[in-house]
């Protein structure tokens, strides 16, 4: 037995050590072809991802936008590819990073429309052509390019336009990509947002931005959730099969970022205190980013509370059906419960959003509440059922024999005893539910986790947002547990002094 433990531990240590990367000599790398043999972090589903996948010998690490720089910083990847415009605006030197080479997959970003929405697309193209010819476009781009990272007036640059009553509202799917689309002081801003606002004003549309994961944009467009993709998307053959692309509105390319040659590791740059302080400032104070977190927290709390209520209702209903003596009722209920418990929650959520409610305008929040309600309702119903079955039949019989009706017996005799056994078990499930709400980002809801993702995509710093989010989730779980414990104590039978 002991020998096996040793072997297990040794094997684990070996595996862990294998995941660490050896330092590579990066000096000879000057282009995409030279990346063979190196590990490269890219945003999942981005055009860099597609490009690198076709080059044999490159170890592609697909991550979220927020994790790319951190991966290089921590040595988990040799390179990462981010937008060169963005790379220039970030203070890379302070993080011990540098741009190795530029102009990767030099290309142009286009807006995406549904195939059948060619009228809108041509309107947009006409607008672009117009400002290009009149020189407005160049002036406007220069303004943005000259702005620095800390540009205080970034939000002022964005053209705001009033909604005109009665105009068609365009639902625009975006992914937070600095500096094209980002949040500043909790307001959406960036070059692309500015441009699109101007277009909408000229064409007489109202506009409504919704934040999606990059990989979810095309499904969202095709299922009718959004009308326009405005997310610095490049035109590729693959994408063009599903999306009608506009003319290019911005030119750009990728920059390969690696650790700078002088080999300053992040640990030596500054003391832990300084780094914490920096991280705190960057992730919360600057541009009032805490407001985004606070909004996200509120959304998480709201979804959690509504989902728990929905799950309890669904659970009671399913439990009632499941415990029916008629097989015609209990059998289908059992199957539904097994199905719901057999599908991963994330898949249920996506199914509800992109398939079942694809064509309706129901918001992600309500889809999430319904999904969580159903999924956890299935779990709750089984908890309720065991609780009910743990109350002896004799208790029912005693109530009935004394002349209480069925419902009175349930209400006064069985339920108090069942609840007493249900609550402790339910506690774990409820806390699991709260933590599980962190996946709602997939259906365009900005909750606590998504808010931290957005901040991380902007600051490209993993440490502080993740720690903060963890702490908040722990607090939420702890408070919920405490509340349920108080309830449990209330329900515990107590003797009376008479």
């Amino acid at each position, binding site marked *: 037995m002991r020998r096996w433990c040793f072997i297990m531990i040794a094997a684990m240590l070996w595996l862990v050590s294998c995941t660490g990367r050896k330092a590579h000599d990066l000096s000879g790398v000057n282009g995409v072809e030279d990346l063979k043999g190196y590990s490269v972090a890219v945003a999942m589903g981005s055009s860099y991802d597609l490009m690198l996948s076709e080059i044999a010998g490159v170890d592609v690490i697909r991550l979220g936008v927020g994790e790319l720089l951190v991966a290089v910083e921590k040595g988990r990847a040799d390179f990462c590819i981010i937008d060169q415009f963005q790379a220039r605006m970030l203070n890379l030197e302070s993080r011990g990073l540098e741009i190795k080479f530029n102009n990767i997959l030099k290309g142009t970003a286009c807006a995406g429309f549904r195939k059948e929405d060619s009228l809108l697309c041509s309107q947009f193209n006409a607008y672009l052509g117009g400002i290009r010819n009149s020189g407005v476009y160049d002036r406007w781009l220069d303004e943005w390019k000259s702005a620095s990272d800390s540009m205080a007036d970034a939000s002022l640059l964005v053209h705001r336009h009033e909604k005109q009553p009665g105009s068609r509202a365009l639902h625009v799917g975006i992914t937070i990509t600095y500096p094209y689309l980002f949040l500043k002081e909790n307001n959406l801003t960036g070059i692309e947002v500015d441009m699109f606002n101007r277009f909408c004003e000229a064409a007489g549309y109202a506009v409504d931005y919704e934040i999606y994961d990059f990989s979810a944009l095309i499904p969202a467009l095709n299922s009718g959730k959004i009308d326009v993709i405005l997310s610095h998307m490049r035109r590729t053959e693959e994408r063009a099969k599903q999306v009608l692309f506009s003319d290019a509105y911005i030119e750009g390319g990728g920059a390969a970022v690696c650790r700078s040659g002088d080999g300053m590791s992040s640990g030596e740059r500054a003391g832990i205190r300084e780094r914490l302080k920096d991280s705190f400032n960057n992730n919360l104070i600057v541009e009032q980013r805490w407001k985004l977190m606070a909004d996200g927290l509120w959304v998480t709390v709201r979804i959690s509370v509504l989902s728990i209520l929905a799950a309890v209702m669904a659970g009671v209903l399913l439990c009632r059906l499941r415990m029916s003596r008629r097989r015609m009722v209990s059998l289908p209920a059992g199957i539904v419960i097994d199905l719901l418990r057999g599908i991963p929650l994330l898949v249920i959520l996506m199914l509800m959003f992109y398939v079942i409610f694809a064509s309706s305008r129901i918001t992600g929040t309500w889809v999430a509440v319904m999904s969580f309600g159903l999924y956890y309702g299935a779990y709750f119903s089984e908890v309720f059922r065991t609780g009910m079955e743990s109350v002896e039949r004799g208790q029912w019989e*005693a*109530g009935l024999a*004394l*002349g*209480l009706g069925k419902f009175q017996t349930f209400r*006064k*005799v069985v339920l108090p005893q069942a609840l007493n056994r249900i609550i402790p078990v339910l506690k774990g499930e409820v806390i699991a539910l709260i933590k599980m709400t962190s996946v709602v980002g997939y259906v365009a809801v900005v909750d606590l986790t998504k808010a931290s993702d957005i901040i991380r995509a902007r600051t490209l710093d993993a440490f502080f947002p993740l720690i903060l989010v963890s702490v908040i989730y722990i607090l939420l779980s702890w408070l919920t547990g405490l509340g349920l414990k108080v309830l449990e104590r209330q329900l515990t039978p107590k*003797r009376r002094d008479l």
Partner: protein
Amino acid sequence: MIKVRHLKKVFRTPGGDELTVLRDINCDIEKGEVVSIIGPSGTGKSTLLRCLNRLEEPTSGVIEVDGTDILDRRTDISLIRRRMGMVFQNFNLFEHLTILDNLTLCPMTLLGKSREEAEKRGMELLGMVGLHDKAGCLPGELSGGQKQRAAIARCLAMEPEIILFDEPTSALDPTMVSEVLAVIRHLANQGMTMCIVSHEMQFVRDVSTRILFLNEGIVYEEGTPEQIFENPQKPVTRAFINRIRTVESILENRHFDLYGLFGKIHTFCGKYGLGTKVSDKVEHITEEMLCGIMPFCGPVKLTIEYSEKTSGLTLTFRQENATTTILDNTDEDSLSLMMVRGMSTSVTEPETGTVCVEI
């Protein structure tokens, strides 16, 4: 007060088989009577009792309470149940309530009593069953006997017209049986109408005004305690009352397995605590009877009966196809017969071919 006609109850086993527990029950319970239901286990005594307040749904038949057909769908069974208390084998006190709250829950919910009123009456009843001090306790803190007394008090709190007792002492330690029986006796003395299913024969005999002996799904025999206990009319009743245990063996011919039979006798005697001495005696008598006296003009059926009540042992040897009496045709000086007579109190031949030996 309660009239039962042609009551039938069939249980459906999970395997899909049907098990008829009550075939055709007819009985009446009048006001002021204490009716006890006795019978071998598995004859549906509890089922009958539970049909009376419809905790068990009868398959067919009629049950009338004060002229109301309680099996009629339009009858509000809850109203009937309020007037019929029930005491369960496993007490079934409400585990989440204190003893006093157990007593006050239903009067407050169903009879519209105020809390003060219900608690005052509750304390009186607890005093009556000797649990005044336990009013604030939870059921889990009480002994079995105390729980059952509390359960009886809970019944009484609803001021019922009849109480059904479903084996009220079966789940109790022997030491606690008497305290519960004392409470039930007290109620009987006060003239409470009761229907009791119990295995406590002495108690049943003392407290009942009438006894129903249930067997094979019908009321097999019915009468006053004297009739049933002193002078039962049917052999099954007699066997049950005297708690007679039997073992049977059929011996085809003279070449039967004697040692196999000895083993069987030994086991039987051991089971009822008769000791080796008695068992040896039975074996000797059996050997002499079968090897020396019985003519074996066909199979012989041996029945050994032991009454736990009188401790009497009876061996019956029945010769099939017997044409002549056996004892008269046996030489009185035969060694076997002398030995048998020596070891027993009486050897008789009540009918031709059947010899009874009593020890």
